[in-house]
Protein backbone atom coordinates (compact mmCIF):
# COMPACT_ATOMS: atom_id res chain seq x y z
CA UNK A 1 0.00 0.00 0.00
CA UNK A 2 1.34 3.41 -0.90
CA UNK A 3 1.86 6.02 1.77
CA UNK A 4 -0.85 8.33 0.42
CA UNK A 5 -3.43 5.57 0.93
CA UNK A 6 -2.67 5.68 4.64
CA UNK A 7 -2.90 9.46 4.83
CA UNK A 8 -6.67 9.80 5.05
CA UNK A 9 -7.28 7.13 7.70
CA UNK A 10 -4.45 8.60 9.79
CA UNK A 11 -5.77 12.14 9.42
CA UNK A 12 -9.27 10.97 10.36
CA UNK A 13 -7.93 9.13 13.40
CA UNK A 14 -5.92 12.13 14.61
CA UNK A 15 -8.91 14.46 14.14
CA UNK A 16 -11.23 12.11 15.97
CA UNK A 17 -8.68 11.65 18.78
CA UNK A 18 -8.30 15.39 19.26
CA UNK A 19 -12.07 15.86 19.20
CA UNK A 20 -12.42 13.09 21.78
CA UNK A 21 -10.83 15.36 24.36
CA UNK A 22 -13.71 17.82 23.99
CA UNK A 23 -16.57 15.36 23.42
CA UNK A 24 -18.78 13.66 25.98
CA UNK A 25 -16.67 11.50 28.27
CA UNK A 26 -17.55 7.83 28.63
CA UNK A 27 -16.44 7.69 32.27
CA UNK A 28 -18.39 10.20 34.38
CA UNK A 29 -18.97 10.69 38.08
CA UNK A 30 -22.67 9.81 37.78
CA UNK A 31 -21.99 6.58 35.91
CA UNK A 32 -19.36 5.47 38.41
CA UNK A 33 -21.59 6.28 41.39
CA UNK A 34 -24.68 4.65 39.86
CA UNK A 35 -22.73 1.46 39.24
CA UNK A 36 -20.65 1.16 42.41
CA UNK A 37 -23.43 1.85 44.94
CA UNK A 38 -25.87 -0.95 43.98
CA UNK A 39 -22.98 -3.36 43.36
CA UNK A 40 -21.64 -2.70 46.84
CA UNK A 41 -25.06 -3.11 48.47
CA UNK A 42 -25.68 -6.44 46.74
CA UNK A 43 -22.21 -7.73 47.55
CA UNK A 44 -22.67 -6.66 51.19
CA UNK A 45 -25.85 -8.75 51.33
CA UNK A 46 -23.96 -11.64 49.72
CA UNK A 47 -21.15 -11.35 52.29
CA UNK A 48 -23.64 -11.40 55.17
CA UNK A 49 -25.27 -14.52 53.68
CA UNK A 50 -21.86 -16.22 53.40
CA UNK A 51 -21.05 -15.31 57.02
CA UNK A 52 -24.31 -16.94 58.08
CA UNK A 53 -25.86 -13.71 59.33
CA UNK A 54 -29.01 -14.32 57.32
CA UNK A 55 -30.57 -12.36 54.51
CA UNK A 56 -30.21 -8.57 54.48
CA UNK A 57 -33.26 -7.60 52.44
CA UNK A 58 -33.07 -3.86 52.79
CA UNK A 59 -29.38 -3.29 52.04
CA UNK A 60 -28.95 -0.10 50.03
CA UNK A 61 -25.99 2.15 49.41
CA UNK A 62 -25.32 5.59 48.06
CA UNK A 63 -21.97 6.56 46.60
CA UNK A 64 -19.99 9.77 46.51
CA UNK A 65 -17.12 9.33 44.07
CA UNK A 66 -14.39 11.69 42.93
CA UNK A 67 -10.92 11.61 41.42
CA UNK A 68 -8.07 12.56 43.71
CA UNK A 69 -6.08 14.16 40.87
CA UNK A 70 -6.63 17.91 40.75
CA UNK A 71 -8.06 19.27 37.51
CA UNK A 72 -9.46 15.91 36.44
CA UNK A 73 -13.01 17.26 36.63
CA UNK A 74 -14.15 13.93 38.06
CA UNK A 75 -14.36 12.39 34.61
CA UNK A 76 -12.24 9.95 32.67
CA UNK A 77 -10.38 6.72 33.25
CA UNK A 78 -7.88 6.55 36.09
CA UNK A 79 -6.73 4.61 39.12
CA UNK A 80 -7.29 7.62 41.38
CA UNK A 81 -11.06 7.32 41.81
CA UNK A 82 -12.17 7.22 45.45
CA UNK A 83 -15.72 6.35 46.49
CA UNK A 84 -17.37 6.97 49.87
CA UNK A 85 -20.12 4.37 50.16
CA UNK A 86 -22.86 4.99 52.68
CA UNK A 87 -24.53 1.72 53.57
CA UNK A 88 -28.13 1.64 54.78
CA UNK A 89 -29.73 -1.49 56.13
CA UNK A 90 -33.48 -1.36 56.67
CA UNK A 91 -33.41 2.41 56.20
CA UNK A 92 -30.86 2.92 58.97
CA UNK A 93 -27.30 4.16 58.22
CA UNK A 94 -25.01 1.23 58.86
CA UNK A 95 -21.53 2.45 58.02
CA UNK A 96 -19.32 4.35 55.62
CA UNK A 97 -16.86 2.43 53.46
CA UNK A 98 -14.11 4.02 51.38
CA UNK A 99 -13.18 2.17 48.21
CA UNK A 100 -10.28 2.90 45.86
CA UNK A 101 -11.29 2.43 42.26
CA UNK A 102 -9.30 1.81 39.12
CA UNK A 103 -11.74 2.81 36.37
CA UNK A 104 -10.87 1.88 32.79
CA UNK A 105 -11.98 3.83 29.73
CA UNK A 106 -14.22 0.95 28.58
CA UNK A 107 -16.40 1.37 31.71
CA UNK A 108 -15.00 -1.50 33.76
CA UNK A 109 -13.53 -0.93 37.19
CA UNK A 110 -11.91 -2.70 40.08
CA UNK A 111 -12.90 -1.50 43.56
CA UNK A 112 -10.57 -2.23 46.48
CA UNK A 113 -12.22 -2.15 49.88
CA UNK A 114 -11.04 -1.07 53.34
CA UNK A 115 -9.67 -4.31 54.79
CA UNK A 116 -10.22 -3.22 58.38
CA UNK A 117 -13.97 -2.90 57.75
CA UNK A 118 -14.75 -5.55 55.14
CA UNK A 119 -12.18 -8.23 56.00
CA UNK A 120 -9.44 -9.94 54.02
CA UNK A 121 -9.32 -11.68 50.70
CA UNK A 122 -11.20 -14.73 51.90
CA UNK A 123 -13.71 -15.38 54.65
CA UNK A 124 -14.72 -18.46 56.59
CA UNK A 125 -18.32 -19.58 56.52
CA UNK A 126 -20.06 -20.94 59.66
CA UNK A 127 -19.49 -24.44 58.23
CA UNK A 128 -15.74 -23.78 58.18
CA UNK A 129 -15.34 -23.40 54.43
CA UNK A 130 -13.06 -20.75 52.96
CA UNK A 131 -14.76 -18.57 50.35
CA UNK A 132 -13.84 -15.44 48.38
CA UNK A 133 -14.79 -12.34 50.37
CA UNK A 134 -17.02 -10.44 47.90
CA UNK A 135 -16.33 -7.07 49.55
CA UNK A 136 -12.52 -7.31 49.70
CA UNK A 137 -12.35 -6.26 46.05
CA UNK A 138 -14.90 -6.41 43.29
CA UNK A 139 -15.12 -5.82 39.55
CA UNK A 140 -17.95 -4.12 37.74
CA UNK A 141 -18.78 -2.55 34.39
CA UNK A 142 -21.18 0.20 33.37
CA UNK A 143 -22.54 1.21 29.99
CA UNK A 144 -20.45 4.01 28.46
Amino acid sequence: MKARHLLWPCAAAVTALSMGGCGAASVTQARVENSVAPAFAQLYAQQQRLLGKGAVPGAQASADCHRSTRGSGNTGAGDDWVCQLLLQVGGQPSGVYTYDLNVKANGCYTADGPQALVGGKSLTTPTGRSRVNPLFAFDGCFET
Partner: protein
Amino acid sequence: MTAVLATEAVAAPPRTGRPGWAVMWRVELTKLLSQVKVRAALVACVVVPIVFTLLESTQSSVPGDTLFGRWVHESGFAVSLFLLAFTSQWGLPFLVAIVSGDVCSEEDRLQTWPLLLTRSRSRGDVLAGKVLAAASVTVAGTMLLAISSTLSGVLVVGTQPVVGLSGAVLSSGTALAATLASWLVVLPPVLAVVAIAVLASVVSRNSWAGVATPVVVTLGFGLVSQFSAADLVRPLLPTAGFDAWHGLVRTGVYTAPIRESMFVSAAWIAVCVGVSAAVLHRRDVVQ
Protein backbone atom coordinates in the same frame (compact mmCIF):
# COMPACT_ATOMS: atom_id res chain seq x y z
CA MET B 1 -8.37 -47.33 -17.20
CA THR B 2 -6.55 -44.63 -15.31
CA ALA B 3 -5.87 -42.82 -18.55
CA VAL B 4 -9.55 -42.93 -19.50
CA LEU B 5 -10.58 -41.54 -16.14
CA ALA B 6 -7.99 -38.82 -16.34
CA THR B 7 -9.16 -37.83 -19.82
CA GLU B 8 -12.75 -37.71 -18.67
CA ALA B 9 -11.81 -35.57 -15.73
CA VAL B 10 -10.08 -33.08 -17.98
CA ALA B 11 -12.74 -33.12 -20.67
CA ALA B 12 -15.71 -32.78 -18.38
CA PRO B 13 -15.04 -30.85 -15.19
CA PRO B 14 -17.60 -31.80 -12.57
CA ARG B 15 -20.70 -29.67 -13.02
CA THR B 16 -21.99 -29.42 -9.53
CA GLY B 17 -24.10 -26.37 -10.13
CA ARG B 18 -22.42 -24.71 -7.17
CA PRO B 19 -21.41 -21.08 -7.64
CA GLY B 20 -17.70 -20.37 -8.03
CA TRP B 21 -17.24 -18.88 -4.58
CA ALA B 22 -18.74 -21.97 -2.95
CA VAL B 23 -16.35 -24.23 -4.85
CA MET B 24 -13.40 -22.04 -3.84
CA TRP B 25 -14.63 -21.95 -0.24
CA ARG B 26 -14.41 -25.73 -0.11
CA VAL B 27 -11.03 -25.79 -1.84
CA GLU B 28 -9.56 -23.16 0.48
CA LEU B 29 -11.05 -24.88 3.52
CA THR B 30 -9.26 -28.08 2.55
CA LYS B 31 -6.02 -26.14 2.04
CA LEU B 32 -6.30 -24.45 5.44
CA LEU B 33 -7.21 -27.58 7.35
CA SER B 34 -4.28 -29.50 5.88
CA GLN B 35 -1.79 -27.01 7.37
CA VAL B 36 -0.03 -28.18 10.51
CA LYS B 37 -0.10 -24.72 12.14
CA VAL B 38 -3.88 -24.39 11.64
CA ARG B 39 -4.50 -27.86 13.05
CA ALA B 40 -2.21 -27.05 15.98
CA ALA B 41 -4.11 -23.81 16.64
CA LEU B 42 -7.45 -25.66 16.68
CA VAL B 43 -6.04 -28.30 19.03
CA ALA B 44 -4.72 -25.49 21.27
CA CYS B 45 -8.23 -23.97 21.41
CA VAL B 46 -9.43 -27.22 23.00
CA VAL B 47 -6.40 -28.07 25.14
CA VAL B 48 -5.39 -24.69 26.61
CA PRO B 49 -8.64 -24.14 28.62
CA ILE B 50 -8.43 -27.69 30.02
CA VAL B 51 -4.79 -27.30 31.07
CA PHE B 52 -5.47 -23.85 32.55
CA THR B 53 -8.47 -25.05 34.55
CA LEU B 54 -6.63 -28.10 35.89
CA LEU B 55 -3.51 -26.11 36.84
CA GLU B 56 -5.57 -23.27 38.37
CA SER B 57 -7.55 -25.72 40.51
CA THR B 58 -4.32 -26.91 42.15
CA GLN B 59 -3.21 -23.50 43.42
CA SER B 60 -4.74 -21.06 45.85
CA SER B 61 -3.91 -17.74 44.15
CA VAL B 62 -6.27 -16.31 41.55
CA PRO B 63 -5.66 -14.14 38.45
CA GLY B 64 -7.57 -11.21 39.95
CA ASP B 65 -6.34 -8.60 37.47
CA THR B 66 -8.72 -9.87 34.75
CA LEU B 67 -12.53 -9.82 34.94
CA PHE B 68 -13.92 -12.89 36.75
CA GLY B 69 -10.38 -13.93 37.69
CA ARG B 70 -11.13 -13.66 41.42
CA TRP B 71 -14.06 -16.10 41.06
CA VAL B 72 -12.33 -18.94 39.15
CA HIS B 73 -12.36 -21.22 42.19
CA GLU B 74 -15.99 -20.44 43.01
CA SER B 75 -17.84 -21.13 39.75
CA GLY B 76 -17.12 -22.86 36.47
CA PHE B 77 -18.86 -20.06 34.59
CA ALA B 78 -16.31 -17.63 36.00
CA VAL B 79 -13.56 -19.84 34.50
CA SER B 80 -15.18 -19.59 31.07
CA LEU B 81 -15.78 -15.83 31.35
CA PHE B 82 -12.25 -15.24 32.65
CA LEU B 83 -10.87 -17.14 29.65
CA LEU B 84 -13.13 -15.08 27.36
CA ALA B 85 -11.86 -11.81 28.87
CA PHE B 86 -8.26 -13.02 28.67
CA THR B 87 -8.27 -14.59 25.21
CA SER B 88 -10.21 -11.78 23.56
CA GLN B 89 -7.14 -9.66 24.26
CA TRP B 90 -4.27 -12.15 24.19
CA GLY B 91 -5.51 -15.22 22.33
CA LEU B 92 -8.05 -14.60 19.58
CA PRO B 93 -5.83 -12.16 17.61
CA PHE B 94 -3.17 -14.89 17.47
CA LEU B 95 -5.73 -17.45 16.32
CA VAL B 96 -6.79 -15.06 13.54
CA ALA B 97 -3.15 -14.39 12.63
CA ILE B 98 -2.29 -18.09 12.39
CA VAL B 99 -5.38 -18.98 10.36
CA SER B 100 -5.80 -15.92 8.12
CA GLY B 101 -2.44 -14.13 8.14
CA ASP B 102 -1.06 -15.80 5.02
CA VAL B 103 -4.26 -16.98 3.39
CA CYS B 104 -3.40 -14.91 0.31
CA SER B 105 0.32 -14.29 0.73
CA GLU B 106 1.02 -18.04 0.72
CA GLU B 107 0.17 -17.94 -2.98
CA ASP B 108 2.90 -15.28 -3.37
CA ARG B 109 5.35 -17.30 -1.31
CA LEU B 110 4.67 -20.48 -3.28
CA GLN B 111 4.28 -18.50 -6.53
CA THR B 112 0.95 -20.20 -7.21
CA TRP B 113 -1.15 -17.13 -8.15
CA PRO B 114 -0.78 -17.75 -11.90
CA LEU B 115 -1.83 -21.37 -11.40
CA LEU B 116 -4.81 -20.37 -9.26
CA LEU B 117 -6.04 -17.46 -11.37
CA THR B 118 -5.75 -19.12 -14.76
CA ARG B 119 -8.44 -21.59 -13.73
CA SER B 120 -12.09 -21.08 -14.53
CA ARG B 121 -12.88 -19.21 -11.32
CA SER B 122 -12.78 -15.43 -11.17
CA ARG B 123 -10.52 -13.48 -8.83
CA GLY B 124 -13.60 -12.48 -6.87
CA ASP B 125 -14.52 -16.14 -6.41
CA VAL B 126 -10.98 -16.95 -5.26
CA LEU B 127 -10.92 -14.11 -2.72
CA ALA B 128 -14.44 -14.93 -1.51
CA GLY B 129 -13.40 -18.54 -1.03
CA LYS B 130 -10.31 -17.53 0.93
CA VAL B 131 -12.20 -15.06 3.15
CA LEU B 132 -15.01 -17.54 3.84
CA ALA B 133 -12.55 -20.36 4.59
CA ALA B 134 -10.47 -18.20 6.96
CA ALA B 135 -13.66 -16.95 8.64
CA SER B 136 -15.11 -20.46 9.05
CA VAL B 137 -11.94 -21.88 10.58
CA THR B 138 -11.57 -18.89 12.94
CA VAL B 139 -15.21 -19.12 14.03
CA ALA B 140 -14.75 -22.86 14.58
CA GLY B 141 -11.63 -22.18 16.68
CA THR B 142 -13.46 -19.57 18.78
CA MET B 143 -16.38 -21.93 19.36
CA LEU B 144 -14.01 -24.77 20.32
CA LEU B 145 -12.43 -22.37 22.82
CA ALA B 146 -15.90 -21.46 24.15
CA ILE B 147 -17.05 -25.06 24.52
CA SER B 148 -13.76 -26.24 26.00
CA SER B 149 -13.62 -23.31 28.49
CA THR B 150 -17.21 -23.76 29.63
CA LEU B 151 -17.03 -27.57 29.86
CA SER B 152 -13.72 -27.61 31.74
CA GLY B 153 -15.00 -24.91 34.09
CA VAL B 154 -18.25 -26.77 34.75
CA LEU B 155 -16.60 -30.19 35.11
CA VAL B 156 -13.62 -29.12 37.23
CA VAL B 157 -15.10 -26.29 39.33
CA GLY B 158 -18.87 -26.77 39.03
CA THR B 159 -22.08 -24.95 38.13
CA GLN B 160 -22.27 -22.65 41.15
CA PRO B 161 -23.93 -19.23 40.77
CA VAL B 162 -21.53 -16.43 39.87
CA VAL B 163 -21.26 -12.77 40.87
CA GLY B 164 -21.98 -10.70 37.73
CA LEU B 165 -20.64 -7.32 36.69
CA SER B 166 -23.46 -5.48 38.49
CA GLY B 167 -22.59 -7.09 41.83
CA ALA B 168 -25.68 -9.32 41.77
CA VAL B 169 -25.40 -13.09 42.08
CA LEU B 170 -26.54 -14.78 38.86
CA SER B 171 -28.19 -18.20 39.18
CA SER B 172 -26.56 -21.17 37.42
CA GLY B 173 -29.06 -21.10 34.55
CA THR B 174 -28.71 -17.36 33.98
CA ALA B 175 -24.93 -17.62 34.23
CA LEU B 176 -24.79 -20.44 31.66
CA ALA B 177 -26.97 -18.52 29.19
CA ALA B 178 -24.96 -15.32 29.71
CA THR B 179 -21.66 -17.20 29.29
CA LEU B 180 -22.66 -18.85 26.02
CA ALA B 181 -24.17 -15.62 24.67
CA SER B 182 -20.98 -13.74 25.61
CA TRP B 183 -18.85 -16.11 23.54
CA LEU B 184 -21.19 -15.58 20.55
CA VAL B 185 -20.99 -11.80 20.95
CA VAL B 186 -17.23 -11.90 20.46
CA LEU B 187 -17.63 -13.29 16.91
CA PRO B 188 -18.30 -9.99 15.01
CA PRO B 189 -15.02 -8.35 16.16
CA VAL B 190 -13.16 -11.62 15.52
CA LEU B 191 -14.46 -11.60 11.94
CA ALA B 192 -13.44 -7.96 11.58
CA VAL B 193 -9.89 -8.90 12.60
CA VAL B 194 -10.02 -11.74 10.05
CA ALA B 195 -10.84 -9.15 7.37
CA ILE B 196 -7.91 -6.98 8.53
CA ALA B 197 -5.63 -10.02 8.32
CA VAL B 198 -6.83 -10.85 4.79
CA LEU B 199 -6.24 -7.25 3.71
CA ALA B 200 -2.72 -7.30 5.18
CA SER B 201 -2.09 -10.61 3.49
CA VAL B 202 -3.26 -9.34 0.07
CA VAL B 203 -1.52 -5.96 0.22
CA SER B 204 1.82 -7.01 1.73
CA ARG B 205 2.20 -10.24 -0.31
CA ASN B 206 4.32 -11.30 2.64
CA SER B 207 3.39 -13.98 5.16
CA TRP B 208 5.26 -12.35 8.03
CA ALA B 209 3.45 -9.03 7.52
CA GLY B 210 0.14 -10.85 7.15
CA VAL B 211 0.61 -12.74 10.40
CA ALA B 212 1.99 -9.80 12.41
CA THR B 213 -0.54 -7.18 11.28
CA PRO B 214 -3.71 -8.52 12.96
CA VAL B 215 -1.83 -8.98 16.25
CA VAL B 216 -0.15 -5.57 16.14
CA VAL B 217 -3.34 -3.80 15.00
CA THR B 218 -5.46 -5.44 17.72
CA LEU B 219 -2.94 -4.66 20.45
CA GLY B 220 -2.53 -1.11 19.09
CA PHE B 221 -6.28 -0.51 19.03
CA GLY B 222 -6.47 -1.94 22.54
CA LEU B 223 -3.76 0.47 23.69
CA VAL B 224 -5.45 3.50 22.09
CA SER B 225 -8.78 2.45 23.66
CA GLN B 226 -7.32 2.75 27.17
CA PHE B 227 -7.16 6.52 26.92
CA SER B 228 -10.18 8.62 27.82
CA ALA B 229 -9.05 11.02 25.07
CA ALA B 230 -10.04 8.30 22.57
CA ASP B 231 -13.68 8.18 23.73
CA LEU B 232 -14.99 9.16 20.29
CA VAL B 233 -12.76 6.76 18.39
CA ARG B 234 -13.15 3.74 20.66
CA PRO B 235 -16.63 2.67 19.50
CA LEU B 236 -15.45 2.84 15.87
CA LEU B 237 -12.64 0.34 16.46
CA PRO B 238 -13.43 -3.36 16.04
CA THR B 239 -11.72 -4.05 19.38
CA ALA B 240 -14.58 -2.28 21.25
CA GLY B 241 -16.70 -5.30 20.32
CA PHE B 242 -14.46 -7.49 22.49
CA ASP B 243 -16.01 -5.68 25.51
CA ALA B 244 -19.63 -5.83 24.29
CA TRP B 245 -20.39 -8.97 26.34
CA HIS B 246 -19.95 -7.01 29.59
CA GLY B 247 -23.58 -5.90 29.21
CA LEU B 248 -24.85 -9.49 29.32
CA VAL B 249 -23.30 -10.94 32.48
CA ARG B 250 -25.31 -8.89 34.97
CA THR B 251 -28.76 -7.89 36.14
CA GLY B 252 -30.09 -4.95 34.11
CA VAL B 253 -28.70 -6.32 30.84
CA TYR B 254 -27.74 -3.76 28.18
CA THR B 255 -27.21 -4.68 24.52
CA ALA B 256 -26.51 -1.37 22.76
CA PRO B 257 -22.73 -2.11 22.59
CA ILE B 258 -23.51 -5.44 20.89
CA ARG B 259 -25.56 -3.74 18.17
CA GLU B 260 -22.86 -1.09 17.72
CA SER B 261 -20.20 -3.77 17.53
CA MET B 262 -22.11 -5.63 14.80
CA PHE B 263 -22.41 -2.47 12.67
CA VAL B 264 -18.79 -1.43 13.24
CA SER B 265 -17.46 -4.93 12.52
CA ALA B 266 -19.59 -5.17 9.37
CA ALA B 267 -18.17 -1.84 8.17
CA TRP B 268 -14.57 -2.97 8.82
CA ILE B 269 -15.23 -6.25 7.02
CA ALA B 270 -16.81 -4.45 4.04
CA VAL B 271 -13.94 -1.97 3.73
CA CYS B 272 -11.12 -4.50 4.22
CA VAL B 273 -12.59 -7.12 1.89
CA GLY B 274 -13.52 -4.42 -0.64
CA VAL B 275 -9.99 -2.98 -0.70
CA SER B 276 -8.54 -6.51 -0.88
CA ALA B 277 -10.75 -7.28 -3.88
CA ALA B 278 -9.76 -4.03 -5.62
CA VAL B 279 -6.04 -4.65 -5.04
CA LEU B 280 -6.26 -8.26 -6.16
CA HIS B 281 -8.29 -7.33 -9.24
CA ARG B 282 -5.69 -4.84 -10.46
CA ARG B 283 -2.67 -6.99 -9.68
CA ASP B 284 -0.62 -8.40 -12.51
CA VAL B 285 0.05 -11.86 -11.16
CA VAL B 286 1.68 -13.45 -14.20
CA GLN B 287 5.17 -11.98 -13.99
